[in-house]
């Protein structure tokens, strides 16, 4: 595909540039501008390089696989019309970049501005050269998004935020409608490819779904092009920096709407529905926009409404269902881009050099900035449609069309008058722009002393004005070939005859034009006094309804309804939320059982074993006891929780799950120690009768929770009974049992599943454990105990701050009762090496017999925490220098991930295991599957994570003690300082 590279480059370069610009330092104004300008110029030259192909009637195409499963490809397509628009986007883009370099203040984060601008340029290019409608909608929405960012660039001002939000809401909503419309269109045609759609015009127009598709697509196009009644977002978007306005509202964003209408014109137009919707919207927009523009006091506001009006004119032309009108529309798109962009830039220059854009304050700038004045004069004359300028030519074509267009009903007769009226308005507001800003007496109260701008800032304006003049004088020689190219790609062989000459003799359009110009001048003279005096809003159409409806809807949706919903369904309290979750879970489970009629199964029950029954009599009592005691007797509740946990462990052993029992047992120990360490920081709670408000309320509350708990427990019990009395599905179990040794190389099936078959799962799991440990550590580093838990607890005060085993170790000051806890202290030291050996044993046998990295790691952690508990923090840390939990964690993660990755090096998929048996001296045959290495990683991580949490929690007490001046003889009565900075 020789076309692929340039097309892709045109599309992708701006996005790459955007990322690069976004990474530049905040004050790299010149670098960002050079980058953006370079990319725009590069894009333009790439577009230009495609000219020979396109001029010969060819179409550049490129296709890349995107989602082949859905039949979606990235499809790029550049015909004459797309070429013209791509040239407009990149060419005007380059001029705007140059202008923005001088417009933007050094205090703004300019690289961000250029990043947004480039991204927008890329999105716009994407819309223009998309060969697939879905892809077009994607880029369409991107333009909405980036225009939001551009309009809201000065996000510190409320106007920019509001304007950006309004533009996004309107255009993105339209974009959604467009998406739906495109889907319908694709359904009609059977393909989303533009080529296929363009070739199916008759089928589309005759299809029953034509009208819905048309309405949805037009909703997208008309919102984007700011057509009545969606026009109101555009004036608010003027809060953007002026280069943005010049770019978005002359050549790009708003032109996307008319681009789409022209693009789909061959397949969608030609029906009455098209004429009435598009034509009416265009007509009203053209008149209303032009009328309101006269009464704007802000230069940019005037240009905004004039833009709306001109877009209305283009839309009206597209709506006339005439090929000649389409030619006029495309021509006017070009002309409008040239003169409106230069006018926006001129308005920006005025704003930049005088500090205001208010026409009532501006006056007589002709003296201080004569060059700018002349440039603006020419551009405004083009906007007004003065002969020998480009605007005149497309206006003449418009008048001719208004006179001859074949339209249903009798609307034809009114069209020429409407056209003349709009034209007269446009003469009036152009006069107001020029006369108000540049003529009249010297300005008196300007914020800055006006002067000419930097030459480079004026250059884009000069260039555009030159184009206006050249096209106006020599249309056929300048714009002629390009226009012909674009029109031919839209209409194919059906291109009508049109003439781009300046002089067509004295005919009706010329007379109309003269009358409109005279009318406009007269109108301005009549209104001059009124306008000079200052008028806030235009008479008659004071407040247009569209905006008010929009605002009310937004207030209703985002404020009133949200508040009502929050009041209805929201709460900040945890208990109602949990109650809701439990209730919904119960109902969902209950509904499933109810609908499917799940009763007890028919499997024969196994015989009741009195031992297990007894174990669970105790276990159940422990569970209920824990529930009973958890409020006032935390230690008792914790012990009872351990009792229930032990019952679970016994159940696991009993029913053939030794691995589970082992893991549960070790986890049980560590959890209990953790909770014990935490107990110290919880407030003392003593039962006081009548402490919790009215008894009736409490009773009801407790009764409700009790019934929820009974329902949940009963439901789960019934469900598990139903499950246990059925034959379990065995497909997977069979699979694992068969392959555990033959393919996993281990005889302990559960362990093989964990480290091999579901190794990826385990890998994720140990990362979770590591993350939790680090989070706990980070939270505890900044831990501040509540004031009432700072003091040493009663028991420690009574013990006189003694440290266990001081008599044996001979460390610390000899105090009375130095044999404190002497027996456990001695025992734990004896048991420590034995526990380590048990851990290694569990680790090594894990692959073949119950054990494994996790339980081994837990055992090591328990061994160490035992030393902490009995020997004390200082004693233990003096001796166990290798105790660096984070090192253990890091190496554990590296080993596990490394083993997983190592398989890749042997050309196997991630986490593939290798296994063999090694005969070690003394120890015997040891399974040395690579899964063992993986298990060692798990082991190291578990040791590190568990210790990190336990030690961090244990250190809190030490910190508390260190922060408190330790006076063992006296209970710590004085309020203790809370400054416990740094690591414990």
């Amino acid at each position, binding site marked *: 595909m020789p076309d692929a590279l340039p097309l892709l480059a045109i599309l992708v370069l701006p996005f790459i540039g955007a990322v690069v610009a976004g990474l530049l330092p905040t004050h790299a104004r010149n670098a960002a501008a050079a980058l953006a300008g370079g990319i725009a110029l590069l894009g333009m030259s790439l577009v230009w390089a495609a000219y020979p192909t396109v001029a010969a009637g060819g179409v550049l195409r490129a296709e890349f696989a995107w989602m082949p499963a859905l039949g979606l490809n990235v499809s790029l397509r550049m015909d004459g019309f797309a070429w013209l628009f791509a040239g407009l986007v990149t060419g005007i883009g380059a001029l705007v970049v140059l202008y923005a370099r001088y417009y933007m203040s050094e205090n703004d984060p300019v690289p961000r501005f250029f990043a947004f601008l480039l991204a927008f340029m890329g999105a716009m290019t994407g819309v223009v050269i998309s060969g697939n409608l879905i892809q077009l909608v994607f880029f369409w929405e991107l333009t909405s998004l980036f225009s939001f960012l551009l309009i809201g660039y000065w996000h510190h001002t409320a106007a920019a935020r509001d304007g950006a939000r309004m533009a996004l809401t309107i255009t993105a909503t339209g974009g959604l409608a467009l998406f739906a419309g495109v889907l319908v269109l694709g359904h009609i045609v059977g393909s989303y490819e533009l080529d296929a759609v363009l070739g199916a015009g008759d089928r589309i127009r005759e299809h029953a779904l034509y009208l819905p598709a048309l309405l949805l697509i037009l909703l997208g196009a008309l919102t984007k092009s700011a057509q009545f009644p969606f026009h109101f977002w555009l004036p608010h978007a003027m809060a953007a920096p002026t280069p943005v306005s010049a770019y978005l509202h002359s050549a790009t964003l708003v032109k996307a709407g008319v681009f789409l209408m022209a693009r789909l014109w061959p397949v969608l137009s030609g029906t009455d529905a098209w004429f009435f919707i598009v034509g009416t919207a265009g007509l009203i927009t053209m008149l209303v926009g032009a009328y309101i523009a006269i009464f704007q006091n802000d230069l940019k506001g005037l240009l905004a409404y004039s833009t709306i009006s001109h877009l209305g004119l283009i839309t009206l032309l597209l709506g006339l269902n005439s090929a000649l009108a389409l030619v006029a529309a495309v021509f006017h798109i070009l002309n409008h881009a040239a003169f409106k962009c230069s006018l926006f830039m001129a308005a920006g220059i005025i704003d930049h050099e005088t500090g205001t854009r208010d026409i009532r304050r501006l006056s007589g700038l002709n003296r201080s900035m004569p060059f700018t004045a002349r440039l603006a004069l020419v551009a405004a004359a083009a906007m007004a449609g003065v002969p020998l300028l480009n605007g005149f030519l497309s206006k003449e074509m418009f008048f001719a069309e208004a006179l001859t267009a074949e339209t249903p009903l009798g609307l034809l007769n009114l069209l020429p008058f409407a056209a003349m009226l709009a034209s007269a308005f446009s003469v009036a507001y152009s006069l107001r722009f020029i006369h108000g800003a540049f003529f009249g007496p010297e300005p008196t109260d300007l914020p800055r002393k006006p002067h000419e701008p930097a030459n480079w800032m004026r250059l884009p304006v000069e260039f555009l004005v030159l184009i206006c003049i050249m096209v106006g004088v020599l249309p056929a020689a300048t714009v002629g070939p390009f226009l012909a190219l674009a029109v031919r790609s839209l209409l194919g062989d059906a291109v009508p005859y049109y003439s781009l000459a300046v002089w067509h003799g004295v005919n009706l359009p010329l007379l109309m034009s003269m009358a409109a110009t005279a009318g406009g001048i007269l109108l301005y003279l009549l209104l001059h006094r009124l306008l000079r005096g200052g008028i806030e809003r235009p008479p008659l159409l004071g407040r247009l309804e569209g905006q008010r409806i929009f605002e009310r809807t937004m207030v209703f949706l985002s404020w009133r309804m949200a508040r009502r919903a929050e009041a209805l369904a929201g709460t900040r309290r945890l*208990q109602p939320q949990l109650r809701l979750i439990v209730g919904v879970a119960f109902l969902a489970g209950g509904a499933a059982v109810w609908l499917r009629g799940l009763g007890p199964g028919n499997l024969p*029950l*196994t*015989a*009741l074993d009195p031992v297990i029954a007894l174990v*669970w009599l105790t276990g*159940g009592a422990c*569970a209920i006891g*824990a*529930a009973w005691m*958890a*409020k006032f007797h935390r230690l008792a509740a*914790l012990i009872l*929780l351990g009792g*229930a946990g032990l019952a679970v462990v016994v*159940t696991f052993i*009993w*029913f053939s*799950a*030794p*691995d*589970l029992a082992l*893991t*549960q047992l070790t*986890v049980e120990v*560590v959890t209990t120690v953790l*909770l014990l360490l*935490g*107990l110290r*920081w*919880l*407030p003392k709670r003593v039962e006081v009768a009548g402490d919790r*408000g009215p008894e009736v309320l409490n009773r009801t509350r407790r009764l409700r929770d009790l019934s929820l*708990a009974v329902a*949940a*427990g009963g439901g*789960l*019990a019934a469900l*598990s*009974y139903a*499950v246990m009395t059925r034959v379990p599905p*065995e497909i997977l179990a*069979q699979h694992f049992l068969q*392959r*555990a*040794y033959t393919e996993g190389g281990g*005889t302990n*099936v*559960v362990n093989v599943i*964990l480290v091999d078959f579901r190794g990826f799962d385990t890998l994720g799991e140990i990362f*979770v*454990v590591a993350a*939790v440990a680090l*989070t706990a550590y980070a*939270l*505890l580093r900044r*831990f*501040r105990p509540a*004031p009432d838990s700072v003091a040493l607890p009663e028991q420690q005060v009574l013990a006189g701050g003694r440290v266990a085993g001081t008599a044996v170790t001979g460390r610390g000051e000899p105090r009375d009762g130095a044999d404190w806890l002497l027996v456990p202290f001695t025992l734990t030291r004896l048991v420590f090496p034995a526990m380590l050996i048990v851990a290694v044993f569990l680790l090594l046998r894990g692959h073949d017999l119950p054990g494994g990295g996790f339980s081994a790691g837990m055992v090591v952690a328990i061994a160490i925490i035992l030393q902490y508990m009995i020997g004390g923090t200082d004693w233990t840390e003096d001796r166990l220098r290798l105790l660096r939990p984070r090192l253990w964690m890091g190496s554990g993660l590296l080993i596990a991930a490394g083993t997983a990755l190592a398989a890749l090096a042997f050309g196997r998929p991630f986490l593939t295991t290798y296994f063999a048996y090694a005969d070690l001296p003394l120890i015997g045959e040891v399974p040395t599957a690579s899964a063992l290495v993986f298990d060692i990683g798990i082991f190291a991580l578990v040791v590190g994570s568990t210790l990190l*949490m336990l030690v961090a929690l244990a250190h809190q007490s030490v910190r508390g003690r260190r922060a408190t001046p330790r006076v063992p003889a006296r209970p710590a009565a004085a309020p203790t300082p809370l400054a416990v900075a740094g690591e414990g």
Partner: protein
Amino acid sequence: MELVVSLAIGVLAGSGVWLLLRPRTFQVIIGLSLLSYAVNLFIFSTGGLRTGAAAILEKGQEGSLGQFADPLPQALVLTAIVIGFATTALLLVVLLAARGLTGTDHVDGRDRGR
């Protein structure tokens, strides 16, 4: 046997849910632990209750469900135990931090009526 284990699951879950709805953080953490016992037992029990059939193969053996208990729920529960341990630890630290910051051990960070 099945009845005993289902009742055990029910009691554990009921006690857990009751504690989950209590206002004090310590109650909630104990409740979560009890609830996770119940859920782990439930998942485990979906493989059926078999005695003396731990899934430890002979070398070279292809096991079958006739000889061994279902290892898959066991593997799932093993993962669940580990993750349960991690969340319990995290919850504990969070509740301690909240207690330090707010001065209360109420789940909402402030006592009702205060």
